[in-house]
């Protein structure tokens, strides 16, 4: 689990000694400990986790939220396998979910979910590998099991304390213990995640970049909502994850230590998700988060953004709908069309933006061209009524 909003999935693999099947490492690469799997959960707690996870997977298999595109699934899985190694990824089942937030989860039984919002926020295969490797790290280290046992004993203590009377100081320090334990787990998963990356063909320097951009995005969201930009540079007691700042810092240190080179796979990544990019963008700009969305679009544009990105920005401005936004939106729609955006909706958007900037004739012309491009448009009758005869 990566983001604070995530539900804790379960990670548990019994590590039995002596079943080494790790690949030989290149001399200049970080050495990973040998990996072994024993797919029999041990003890009541662990078997319980597996049972829940199996039931979750049964539900997930038919869920409407799973993106059923074999090509995309194979691609994401491929990145995981190239990061952690074929032997490690063999028994992982990857499900790409249509959820526009930055997250991925790993469950006790080898089920991994990758959220579509994550795919929009990484810029290359190495960054995706860094996040998926982090998740796999929880799995390999059996974190959910340890975290669960620990949470149980501490929440028992808290319940008793609640009975005796409010003793804020004591309770808070115990709560701090629970959450800092899970923070330690997150850090451990981060460190093993970057180790996978260092031992793969991807450069480990990609890992901290994910976090620095996530921080900047959160700042942009806050600014867009006219909230105080307040990045906490020290994790509070109740934060179950290290702050992004701390993460970025120690991951940068680790990457400098490994000092491994490699192609992060930016071009391959763009190709890998190209088919889904319009959908990912559309889901993002409909989240009513102007600042965060604009930041993401800036990032995508800086790394060689396509006409899809320009179109999404045009939509973002016309959705905000301040009078000046329509002027900007109209320019952006024109730019997208010039860049080769062949979605009829670009003409629709242009037309509607122009109508609102008192350029009625040009607006109607754009809308007519939309209807020509898309005679069966679902909003055809509505647009016709705006164009007039």
């Amino acid at each position, binding site marked *: 689990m990566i983001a604070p909003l995530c539900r804790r999935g379960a990670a548990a693999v019994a590590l039995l000694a002596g079943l080494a099947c790790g690949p030989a490492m290149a001399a200049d690469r970080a050495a990973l400990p040998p990996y072994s799997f024993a797919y029999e959960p041990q003890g009541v707690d662990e078997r319980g986790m597996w049972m829940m996870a199996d039931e979750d997977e049964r539900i997930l298999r038919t869920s409407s939220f799973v993106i059923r595109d074999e090509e995309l699934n194979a691609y994401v899985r491929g990145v995981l396998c190239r990061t952690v190694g074929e032997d490690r990824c063999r028994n992982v089942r990857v499900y790409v979910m249509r959820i526009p937030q930055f997250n991925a989860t790993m469950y006790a039984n080898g089920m991994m979910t990758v959220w579509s919002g994550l795919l929009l926020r990484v810029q290359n295969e190495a960054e995706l590998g860094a996040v998926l490797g982090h998740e796999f790290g929880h799995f390999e280290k059996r974190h959910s099991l340890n975290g669960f046992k620990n949470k149980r004993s501490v929440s028992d203590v808290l319940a008793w304390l609640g009975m005796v009377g409010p003793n804020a100081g004591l309770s808070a320090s115990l709560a701090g213990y629970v959450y800092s334990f899970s923070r330690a787990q997150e850090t451990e998963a981060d460190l093993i995640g970057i180790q996978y990356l260092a031992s793969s063909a991807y450069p480990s320097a990609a890992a901290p970049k994910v976090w620095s951009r996530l921080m900047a995005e959160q700042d942009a969201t806050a600014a867009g909502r006219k909230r105080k930009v307040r990045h906490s540079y020290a994790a509070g007691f109740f934060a179950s994850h290290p702050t992004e700042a701390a993460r970025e810092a120690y991951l940068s240190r680790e990457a400098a230590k490994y000092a491994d080179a490699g192609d992060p796979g930016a071009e391959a990544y763009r190709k890998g998700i190209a088919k889904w990019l319009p959908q990912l963008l559309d*889901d993002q700009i409909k989240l*009513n988060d102007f600042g965060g969305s604009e930041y993401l679009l800036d990032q995508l544009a800086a790394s060689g953004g396509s006409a899809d990105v320009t179109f999404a920005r045009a939509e973002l401005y016309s959705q905000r709908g301040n009078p000046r936004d329509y002027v900007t939106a109209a320019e952006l729609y024109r730019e997208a069309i010039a860049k080769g955006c062949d979605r009829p909706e670009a003409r629709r958007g242009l037309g509607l933006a122009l109508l609102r900037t008192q350029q009625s004739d040009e607006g109607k012309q754009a809308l007519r061209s939309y209807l020509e491009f898309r005679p069966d448009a679902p909003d055809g009758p509505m647009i016709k009524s705006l164009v007039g005869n």
Partner: protein
Amino acid sequence: MKPITLIIAAALAAAPAYAGNSLIPAGRTVQVAKSAMAVTPGSEWNKLGRRPGTNGEIWTLDGDKLNRVTFYGGIAQDTTLFREVDRKNSPLPRFSQTMLLTDVPKLLENSYRVALGSALFTIDQMEPARFGGVDGIRFTYSFVAGNQEVQSKGEARAAIVKGRLYMISYEAPALHFFEKNVAQFRQIADSATF
């Protein structure tokens, strides 16, 4: 009233307030959503005691998860369609007087995406339709609420009158329920006056 009486009155009011579902009889014209909007249903409905927002009202036949008619009675400039649960972290989009009728489906879509925590929302069709005696829009949509697996369908009519948004929507699971009551909803929408 003395304070103590107030407390008792509040306590007495508390329980029945939730249980404030009431019968909407057939054939009688009723004001809805604390607004100037009025409808004359051809069949009887239940009005739920709880409201989605200040300018909202819900009618149902079998419970709002199975069939739900929502009235939006004059959403004003810079206000949300319904109550915001987490204004700080998940603010809802707001209605603006600069909106054209073609923007209304997107306002509903984006509000639902945030409120239901689901990217599975699609506008299916939209067309001009008279609503409450003025030019308005009729549109259809489908969605799945987050953490649920029930595919739902929706249909709505809307119009913007004197800078305020008036809308009536109908939503139900795609399996069986949508078709079952959609005609009753359309009759209500046809009967609307402002």
